[in-house]
């Protein structure tokens, strides 16, 4: 029966409805919530959503509630295995504690990318990269 379902957004996502899903956005944000609905553009309705940030082997999360995500911005959508999620060897810390560290990491990464792009452009004859979102 499964093989009869064509590989379309609707065909792939029916089984994910009412499951806890991980959504990664193009800006790098990671959201976890229950997928309640979607459409042909992969616009998503995510209920009881939390945003998670990671750094090394710690993570932090904060409550965000009900989301309507425009499909274009989704990089990845994956089901969270409820049996295994508690076994993940990551330690949870307070959100406020991790946010500044996380922000620093993003800034550092951005700087690294800029330096790399500069070298590639000025010394290696590459063209300039576009703006945001090229990372994916």
């Amino acid at each position, binding site marked *: 029966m499964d093989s009869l379902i064509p590989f379309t957004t609707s065909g792939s996502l029916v089984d994910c*409805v*009412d499951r806890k899903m991980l959504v990664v956005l193009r800006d790098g944000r990671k959201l976890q919530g229950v997928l309640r609905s979607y459409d042909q553009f992969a616009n998503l309705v995510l209920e009881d959503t939390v945003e998670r940030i990671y750094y090394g082997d710690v993570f932090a999360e904060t409550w965000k509630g009900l989301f309507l995500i425009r499909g274009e911005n989704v990089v990845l959508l994956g089901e969270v295995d409820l049996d295994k999620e508690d076994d993940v060897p990551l330690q949870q810390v307070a959100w406020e504690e991790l946010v500044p560290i996380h922000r620093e990491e993003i800034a550092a990464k951005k700087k690294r990318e800029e330096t790399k792009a500069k070298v590639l452009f000025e010394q290696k004859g590459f063209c300039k990269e576009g703006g945001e979102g090229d990372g994916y």
Partner: protein
Amino acid sequence: MSEGHGAARESSLGEWPRSTLPLSLLNAAQNKPMLVELKNGETFNGHLVNCDNFMNITLREVYQTNAEGDRFWKVKECYIRGSTIKYLRVPDTLLDAVKEEQNRAREAGRSARGAHVSGAGNRGRGMPQRGRGAVRGGPMRGGRGRGRGM
């Protein structure tokens, strides 16, 4: 309510889940407060005035924040082109409100026709009789319209 889930799994090829479609949810959010984040990171906090199927929206009493989150503007009313939106955050209570409204509409439709069908088993099958199977069915919607007039 596990209704959406069950129906979505039972239904076959290329049909959307029974639960509220994303754009229907947006429609139902009219006059409700929401936070809109654009692709460029700017956010808009306000009440939804109107929206369309492109996700274009108008908000009133808006607080606009720049991407860095360090500058704010107060805007009386603004229009946002749908294609620039990253996501919208809407009130948690909205999903329940919409489902309740849908149930009421369904019940009203039933009793109006006089054919009172009870039980979940008949859900969906009876719909085509209404003769308006494809209210919002896209091109992907098969002939066996299970359209639920909204």
